């Protein structure tokens, strides 16, 4: 790994200062929270901001408030370790704590933040390589090159959405608040992500994520299942977030099944949801939903594991997520 390039590091104390700094510095600047994603990327020269603006001294971004009834608001700079351990989150949205616990390692969770994880750069075996390696393949579409080596005929970049929290947030209907010098806006998590490995966020670079609102679960249940090679370090190469609300008669009233790690954006599997809604949990409904996930998962050869096998894993991982939700009834 190369060393970090030289850059200016700025540490605003208020949100207003932070967004003003970003506006002043323009395109050559980036926000940084824990830096566990940005700094390795800078070492590999994937991103080369001249100015890096830290959001770690913004007090408002460190709070966790709310409760199970009202929903929870989590500041964007809350550390992943805190997300794992916070009793309020554990009580009201256990799935978020559980998904956060699968991210990387304890050391990186002590540095990384929930906001950083939700905005994580997309990943690819042709992109997450150092400068000299990328030069060896004449670079790639996402950075400095003209060809997507994963799908050379493609006009689009296929780098993979690799956050564990993103599919969970989409499944839970989380709302994300952004601030810029232009004002504030709140977006549904599902609306934030774009199915393009380069422009993977519907967000302008000067917008700063400040907080994440988790609506109350109100009887909904959710689980997250992660496929990775090892029990630590690894990014998901398939993530299944499943949320259901079961009516008093035992039928499934609402369902959201979201796949992560198989495309540039999280994939909501509406066919799986359709297979579940209005039905009671049964082996047949679960199999039908799992089959829909299998059909919808179309991973390419740019992460760990063989892509065909990764696709096949959508079925048992979705099945297991749903069986767990069924058995929690």
């Amino acid at each position, binding site marked *: 790994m190369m060393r970090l390039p030289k850059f200016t590091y700025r540490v605003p104390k208020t949100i207003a200062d932070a967004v003003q700094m970003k506006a002043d510095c323009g395109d050559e600047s980036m926000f940084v929270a824990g830096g566990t994603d940005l700094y390795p990327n800078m070492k590999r020269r994937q991103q080369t901001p001249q100015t890096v603006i830290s959001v770690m001294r913004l007090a408002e971004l460190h709070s966790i408030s709310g409760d199970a009834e009202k929903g929870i608001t989590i500041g964007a700079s809350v550390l992943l370790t805190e997300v794992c351990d916070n009793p309020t989150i554990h009580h009201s949205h256990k799935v978020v704590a559980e998904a956060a616990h699968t991210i990387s390692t304890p050391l990186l969770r002590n540095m990384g933040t929930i906001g950083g994880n939700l905005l994580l750069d997309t990943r690819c075996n042709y992109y997450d390589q150092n400068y000299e390696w990328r030069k*060896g393949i004449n670079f790639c579409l996402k950075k400095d090159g003209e060809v997507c080596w994963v799908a050379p005929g493609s006009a689009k970049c296929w780098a993979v959405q690799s956050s564990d929290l993103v599919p969970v947030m989409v499944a839970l209907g989380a709302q994300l608040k952004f601030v810029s010098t232009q004002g504030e806006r709140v977006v549904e998590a599902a609306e934030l992500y774009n199915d393009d490995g380069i422009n993977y966020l519907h967000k302008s670079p000067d917008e700063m994520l400040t907080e994440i609102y988790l609506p109350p679960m109100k009887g909904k249940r959710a689980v997250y299942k992660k496929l990775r090679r090892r029990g630590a370090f690894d990014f998901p190469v398939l993530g299944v977030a499943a949320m259901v609300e079961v009516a008093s008669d035992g039928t499934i009233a609402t369902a959201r099944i979201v796949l992560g790690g198989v495309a540039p954006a999280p994939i909501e599997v509406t066919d799986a949801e359709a297979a579940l809604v209005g039905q009671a949990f049964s082996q047949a409904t679960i199999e039908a939903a799992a089959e829909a996930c299998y059909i919808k998962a179309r991973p390419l050869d740019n992460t760990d594991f063989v892509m*065909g096998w990764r696709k*096949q894993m959508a079925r048992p991982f979705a099945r297991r997520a749903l069986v767990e939700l069924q058995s929690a009834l």
Partner: protein
Amino acid sequence: MKNGNNGKPLKVVGKPFRKVDARAKCTGQTRFADDITLPRMLYAKLLRSHVPHALIKSIDVSKALALPGVVAVITGKDLPIAYGILPVSQDEHALCIDKVRFIGDPVAAIAAIDEDTAFAAMDLIAVEYQRLKTISTIEEGLHIEEPRIHEYGDSGNVHKKVSLEFGDMDEGFAAADHIREDFFFYEGNTHLPIEQHAALAHYDADEKLTLWSSTQTPHYVHRALAKVLELAPTHVRIIATPNGGGFGGKSDPFNHEVAVAKLAMITGRPVKITLTREEVFYCHRGRHPVLMSIKTGVKKDGAITAMHFRSFLDGGAYGSYGVASTFYTGALQTVTYTVPRYKFEGARLFTNKPPCGPKRGHGTPQPRFALEVQIDKIADDLGLDPAKMRRNNLAAAHSVTANYLRLGTIGLGECIDKIVAASDWQNKFKKLPYGKGIGIACSSYLCGAGLPIYWNSMPHSGVQLRLDRQGGVCVMCGSTDIGQGSDSVLAYIVAEVLGIDPFDIRVITADTDLTPVDLGSYSSRVTLMTGNAALQAAERARELLTVAVAEKLQAPIENISFAERRVFDVENPEVGVTFAEAVVLAESKFGTIGTVGSYSPPRSPGKFKGAGVGPSPAYSYSAAIAEVDVDADTGITTVERIWIGHDIGRSINPALVMGQVEGGVYMGLGEVLMEEMVYRGNRNVVHKFPSMLEYKSPTTMEMCEVKTFLIEDPDPNGPFGAKEVGQGPLLPVMPAVVNAIYDAVGVRVDEVPATPEKVLAALRAKAQGKEGRYGPQGVPATNWPEPLKVLPPAEGGDGREMPREAVHLRD
């Protein structure tokens, strides 16, 4: 008093002392190569080829030289002399001269005032390449004659073909009740030491060169540097710094070592380089990918009548240890179970990838995997218990094998007994529920290569001992501690003989100016060879002290004993002197007390060409049982427990031995479950993921429970009877796990790593009524050379190649 065993109770040997360097390592005081800085030091970077196979048409370094802060830039023409670890493969240049052979091959070296400047200068060097067709697989290496990666070798891109035959194979197979032929593939993998290679060179005013380097083989680096730099060897000093892991990956002389030395000579300033992790992947010298066929004939009880083994090694772009690796893939099949007739054919191919070489187990894990999985299949065919079948057909201790390896003690039977009992094998094998399984495998490894890398008849290891009048003892030896504890072993053995505390001893190792030659930390040779040399030096010192103390005490020489930092009369233990007083007496009588010890292995009984690889003063033995959980929906295998027995001869330090056993199991789990050194053949043969994140190696989360049993049956050739432990315990892990997968779900994965997609593919094939197996379907048709035939010793052979007439007479 053979091997230090004199019937007296041992005070140091066999006790779990801490390592002599443990506190420095734990407190961060140890200085690794990258920790060393010198005044006015420059930093070096290597510009590496980003094309896999090409002629260099031109290199223009002028812009780089013009960059402020750049002090020197060198290219291949500055270092025209070739080198390589083996005399038969002097095929490397520090910087490529007219051709690059893989992505990562260095073409220029820059020295600058800091690393950032050196890095910036890399982009300013213009290299014009003329691309050549690439060779990226075993099959391509066999069949593509042109272009050749090297101008030497047996033919085309075949680096080496060997063929050896011990006894009449047709007769051997005719005697069998059952014959199996199986095909296996073992993917390449790499050492992954936590410390990246680093080197610092200093060329002083007296024109003497000093190189500090994280190397396992300072003596060979010394020879290579003197040759390539055209310096008198007396003007070259190599200091091997403590290694943050080696595993075989720091055993070659490396281009970065040569480059910093040359840059230091040109600039007159110290020059350091620390490789990036990506560059460590390009240094490689790791496990060869090997495609294998094995045909074995057995009697109904599993006794082997004949074995024919073939291996095809994907060697990468340079020779490295590859010729030895090739022979090793055929060497140790005969040392665990009796194999009366044996034939081996092996071929190593050049490909446009980082060179393969020696990784822990050097050339033997691949054939051991094939052999042990096939043995499991044979037991299944014959309806025999695979543990009992192995137990009943062990090679004989103190015998000579069909391929002329002289065996010493064999504790393998006890290893099997221990793990079979501890694992409750009888109640588990074939009796666990679907998805749970148990499997066994055995193995053996050398305790040091019997022959040196370059031909000579000098000792393989030397120790100098200096005793001073304050009672201080200093041990000096060329051996290199790569974390295995060789410095500690020197201290323990000398302390045992001289009756002092191991922490009283100062150990100076791996410095070619200060220490006598030891060939290096490879082939599990150090405890046995350096240990014997230390034992001899210590016993010689003890003799001098004994004579002087006996005279002083007026006691018979045979009464003088050493213990508890005292030298005394055993019949009147209160009558004696302190150890320091004993040294004073000896120094007064004899002058300065210094002794030497050295070790040369016994001559091998094999006299044929190719007999040099395989012989060892002793062989360690291991047996492992793995218990696994296989998820039949996904193919994901979890190794839950390993029971492992290791025949150590005698533990010099059981805590360090256990550590090596567990480390071997850990590395074995990585090889069998996930590790792959793979390339994208359709994308410039680029390494798929030269990073520690994406090259998957187990974390602590994947480590299983390990129950270790040490079998102590002292070997006459080992110091105090000790055998090796650094490499052997890795070997049975891979086949034991794969055999356990079969017991769990009834499918064979005849490949390493046995990744989930392979297990699942085999399960699906089985569900469709096909063979429940994943693995190669055969090996390429090959023109093998006429075998060199040697009659096995059991049939009256003398270890020499049979004359041609005799061969015909036998026909």
